[in-house]
């Protein structure tokens, strides 16, 4: 710990003036990062803190003393002594114009919040800047890919604003490079190679593109099945139940219905990443096959539903009988590698405390 502190002393902090206030920063920080830290609410649509700053939307421009034109704060590294204004009348006017321009190229400004984690970003900014003015109307950009029948990712490019967050997250975070941008200018279009369906590409359906899309152009088709289901969306932070990586997710529910999954951007193991299973394989939980009541095998040799008391009594009686007849080394317990700690802990305690043996194992051997 002491070592760490001495590092701090040696590494002198630099300072700059942010909206009239002297603030400290560390070398390498961008203006946007510093402004964000000081809750300046600099608007942006192409920024995702997990990605390399790209500088496409230009909403985050700020004024820097001594520089003639505004600079994109996301791609500009802070330097010692900079004097920055994050919000002037001119800057705000440019931001509004930019948002009016962006709104003019899309079919919808409003999309369902189940579309994805970032899906409301554009709507929120358009409203914050009162940019639903209908100015700059003209051709719309992007063509929705309705032919891609994959059951997970909606590709509604009529709502695409070409921020390339999807392309960048696929390359920089997921490493799949499944999608890219075709053509140029107003005719840019997000595509896979040869404009095929996602299934025929390098796509692994991790859903990262969906979750970073700020307009809902890419949407979570599974969650959107419940777009019309009654109730507020509730988010519950939990951990994915598949492999051992332990990705943090937010489970989305409406009432008692689980409607979808979103990655936790601050999840320590995954930092916002998920795979197809964690993202989309959740609806087994509320599948009609689920056991709703205990079952016991009756004299007819079949399993029948029963009440808990009967089932638990039958379970205990059977163990007592075996223990009495064959001794305490005749009972064995197999715990689950899928259930929580509390299951494994009580299982081993049950065996050790009831039988005084170590006849307990788990499924790690299979």
């Amino acid at each position, binding site marked *: 710990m002491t070592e760490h502190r001495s590092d701090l002393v040696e590494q002198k902090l630099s300072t700059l003036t942010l909206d009239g206030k002297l603030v400290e920063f560390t070398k390498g920080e961008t203006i946007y990062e510093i402004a964000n830290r000081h809750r300046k609410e600099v608007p942006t649509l192409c920024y995702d803190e997990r990605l390399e700053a790209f500088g496409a939307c230009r909403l985050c421009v700020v004024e820097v003393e001594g520089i003639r034109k505004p600079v994109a704060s996301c791609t500009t590294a802070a330097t010692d002594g900079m004097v920055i204004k994050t919000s002037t009348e001119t800057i705000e006017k440019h931001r509004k114009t930019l948002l009016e321009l962006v709104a003019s190229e899309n079919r919808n400004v409003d999309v369902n919040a189940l579309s994805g984690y970032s899906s409301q970003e554009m709507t929120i900014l358009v409203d914050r800047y009162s940019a639903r003015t209908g100015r700059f109307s003209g051709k719309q950009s992007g063509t929705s890919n309705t032919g891609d029948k994959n059951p997970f990712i909606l590709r509604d490019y009529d709502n695409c604003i070409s921020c390339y967050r999807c392309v960048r997250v696929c390359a920089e975070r997921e490493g799949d490079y499944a999608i890219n941008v075709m053509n140029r200018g107003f005719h840019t279009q997000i595509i896979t190679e040869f404009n095929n369906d996602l299934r025929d590409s390098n796509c692994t359906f991790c859903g990262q593109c969906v979750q970073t899309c700020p307009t809902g152009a890419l949407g979570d088709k599974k969650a959107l099945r419940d777009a019309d289901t009654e109730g507020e969306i509730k988010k519950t932070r939990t951990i994915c139940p598949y492999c051992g990586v332990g990705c943090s997710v937010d489970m989305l529910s409406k009432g008692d219905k689980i409607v979808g999954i979103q990655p936790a951007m601050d999840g320590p193991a995954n930092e916002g990443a998920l795979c197809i299973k964690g993202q989309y394989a959740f609806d087994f939980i509320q599948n009609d096959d689920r056991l709703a009541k205990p079952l016991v095998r009756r004299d007819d040799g079949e399993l029948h539903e029963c009440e808990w008391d009967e089932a638990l009594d039958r379970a205990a009686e059977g163990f007592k009988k075996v223990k009495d007849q*064959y001794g305490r080394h005749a009972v064995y317990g197999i715990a689950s590698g899928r259930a929580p*700690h509390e299951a494994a802990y009580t299982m081993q305690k049950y065996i050790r405390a009831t039988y005084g043996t170590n006849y307990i194992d788990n499924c790690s051997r299979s």
Partner: protein
Amino acid sequence: MSNPLADMEKPDVIFAIGTNMTECHPVAATRLKRALTDGATMVVVDPRKTRLAKMAHLHLPIRVGSDVALLLAMAHVIQRDGLIDESFIAERTADSEAFLSHIRQFTPEWAAEICEVPAEDIERAGKLYGRGNPSAIYYTLGITEHICGVDNVQSLCNLALMTGNLGLEGGGINPMRGQNNIQGAGDCGAVPANFPGFQPCDNPDNAAKFAKLYGRDSIDPERGITKVTALNEAGKSIHAMLIDGENTVVTDPDKNHCEHALKSLDHLVVIDIFLTETGQLADVVLPATAWGETDGVQANTERRVQRLRKAVEPWGEAKPDWWIVSEIAKRMGTPGFEYESAKDVFNELCELSPIYAGLDWDRIDEGKYHWPVPDKEHPGTPRLHEGEFKNGMKGLFKVIGYRDPAEVISDDFPLWLTTGRRLEAYHSRTQTGRSAGLEYLLSEESLEVHPDDADSLGLVHGGMAKMASARGEIEIQVKVTDKSPKGTVFTSFSFANVPVNILTGSGYDPVTQTAELKVCPVRVTPVA
């Protein structure tokens, strides 16, 4: 894992062996991909041309089950070229002399014969690993599911010890755990060798301590039998079982044997969320809550202890596993099961487990801690073996020799079958099979066969084949692909209509009793 997941972005050289990480641990694999973007070099050892193998700078498609030979030859190269870390060996290890003289005989040319890959590639792998600063090892069941699983792991340890790649950021030996809480099951003592927190059962002090804590006169001061032995003893010395959330019949090797074992029990109680093939054999089936329906704790592959939270009410009358087990225990008259919440259970575990001593339910709220956390002031241990090994002990070199798999190919069974997972399915598909949309990507299982093998066996892409081992026979659709090397076929164990574990189960590791699921000689013939 000895190192945290975050370290996977930092190795200089990545040595990935027996791990199909992009399919089995996709999110962890994204970190390796980022390391590659940043300039890391990757060596992948896998019989199959997996996606990870395609990204590698060097891919060694070794014959299944020949890992030890490869690792011995790599150690040989590392020593021969003076790439060993003398000071690490001197300060932190023991028994190096025997090991270092042992490996002198195992040349790359020797291993090339066994592994069926060019000696130059083995040479290159050894040099890359030996020169990496640091080098990190990643492995999964491709290393452990062998009769020589322990030998494989210890061979990897030898490599890390001789090059000093332990206790370093971006280095280490990193097994990737396959199930969400398989780490936790061990942490909690659900193993025959240890009490909670890896306190050995064969230490009489531990046995006495837990007997007292659990309100008994005594607990056997010796290890229990393993699950594999227990299944073998079913109907003989074992007559009742309590199985929580495991579809033993489908996922375990030698399905017929397993089914027979469970049927010979007097009493079988199964706790699960679905009526699985295993549940159908039970006397009592108890419905458990599923993910999202209960609070709890799980530990991931980097020993990070994290909270699960309840989002919705349970399905039907389903109850948490801990509640169900506690109710059975109470009915057995066992004291100490008066829990009111998952929190009560977890806090009791923390009190009894030295590696969890610094934790409690509230402290793990944000999932910040990696065990061991010996006290409340401790920040947790993201990286093991920094500065010293556990309790100041020395890292021990083990002298290991190569041996053949339990069964080797023959005229009757001329192909190697190896099994694994696929991205879009998980285990026996009790969950992924019930999730809408997954079938769009993977609707049925198939057997991956190299084009040359398909030609010589008369198999066609999309056609059906019979696959037989010494234990049984199944039918499966053929997929002709060069993802499998010549002479080896692959399938997953995820589809009930392709019960591949009828075939497997040729042998078990003598120490861990892990089954050799990765190697099984088979015969494949076309179905007319």
